[in-house]
């Protein structure tokens, strides 16, 4: 009964009830009508051309990769930050080396132009 994650379960249940209730109410009430023009994807009133799942700029993909790299390294910093006071100078030097390596990678990414958007 005193498991720390039990309140989360209750919270999830409460939020789920609200989400499902909103969905149900929204689909129960409200009119249903259909016509050809309404079923077209909205493209500012012009007749839609082609499929919407188009190819997009590779830069977005690049951002996703950079996110993976940097977010993982941020996660490594969390346990270190919590125990920092106990680790003292030793921890400072160790994490300093890690941060230097991270910074080298960051400078490389910057110089390669992966962060440019023009």
């Amino acid at each position, binding site marked *: 009964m005193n498991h720390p*994650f039990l*309140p989360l379960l209750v919270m999830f249940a409460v939020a789920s009830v609200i989400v499902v209730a909103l*969905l149900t109410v*929204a689909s129960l*009430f409200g009119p249903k009508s259909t016509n050809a023009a309404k079923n077209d994807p*909205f493209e500012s009133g012009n007749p839609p051309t082609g499929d919407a799942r188009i190819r*997009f700029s590779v830069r977005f993909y690049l951002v996703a990769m950079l*996110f993976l790299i940097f977010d993982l390294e*941020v996660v490594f910093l969390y346990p270190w930050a919590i125990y920092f006071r106990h680790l003292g100078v030793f921890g400072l030097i160790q994490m300093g080396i890690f941060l230097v390596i991270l910074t080298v990678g960051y400078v490389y990414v910057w110089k390669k132009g992966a962060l440019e*958007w023009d």
Partner: protein
Amino acid sequence: MIVDLAIITLKAVLVVAMVLNLAGVLGWIERKGSALIQDRIGANRASIFGFAGLGLVNTLIADPLKFLTKEDFIPPKGDRFLHTLAPCMALFPALVTFAVIPFGDVLNFGERVINLQVASLNIGILYVFAMGSLGVYGIVIGAWASNNKFSMLGGVRGSAQMISYEVAMGLSVIGILMVYGTLELQDIARDQGTLIRDLMPSWLSFLTPIVGWLPAWGIFLQPVAFILFFTAAVAETKRIPFDLPEGESELVAGYHVEYSGGKFLMFFAGEFAEIVTAAGLVTTLFFGGWQVPYLMRDGFHFPWGGTLLLPHLLIVLMQVTAFTVKVVFFCWVQILLRWSVPRFRYDQVMRLGWKMLLPLALLNVAVTAIWIIAAQ
């Protein structure tokens, strides 16, 4: 045992209700506040028996009713299941994130000691980030399922923007974690009850008469982290000046172009719930959470001497009120921001995230580490 479960449920319902209610009131503040800023009248049409309540009837009763009775349109060329899933993924994480944010200290009720926080997790802030990053799925799935070019562009922009600012947000908090040495938000809030003079290293003791009376809030210990965190948090809520995913002038409404009725309301409520959560986080990490300066568990203890003992219930009430006032203040700051500054260009948004916030946050971590070692 049943009582324990009842208390947990009560707290969960209370917190979700508070977030949703604040989100609703924010909708009103947004409409009336923007009208005030732009010298308009704002929402005033709907009324019950002639009572319009300064537009409250309009935004709290008429708007949701109208949303829920509109047609729930699903684009036939889109994906039916994903189109329904997306608003759930947008609203659900925004509602549950508040679970780890404390809204008061402890309430002694007879024999029972009730922690005024839904879930006391030792991974506190990691849970916040875990849930916060789930929000990006709502955008991506919604954009993909709509099968609309505007949605697609908005979704791609939104996902790249949100994950970029997540890195900066995660890094900016590390300074705070180093100072307080815990991930649990209730402990962080409790630690902010001390005074700066208790934390001052001996070689800085000459500063004690000047700043020693300040409470040890995050804003005084980590001012740079506050600016970085707040910027990243505003960017995560996808509002002006960071509203590229839904920029009206270019993308109509971005990822929710093809949404109507209740599902649009869910995206809308999710966005406002995110604002409330961001305000709650900023309050807890940097502005003492539920702390009232100099208010301890038995009353006021002023740094210049003198105490004022108060009854327990009054103290709890003051703490919860202080927390609410701070949260409402930061909600208002975010809304003020939305109506005061123009939208960034996309390259500016990405440059701010990757080339300014990220290196500044790294620098903040390094400086904090050296400072703590030097102060020991």
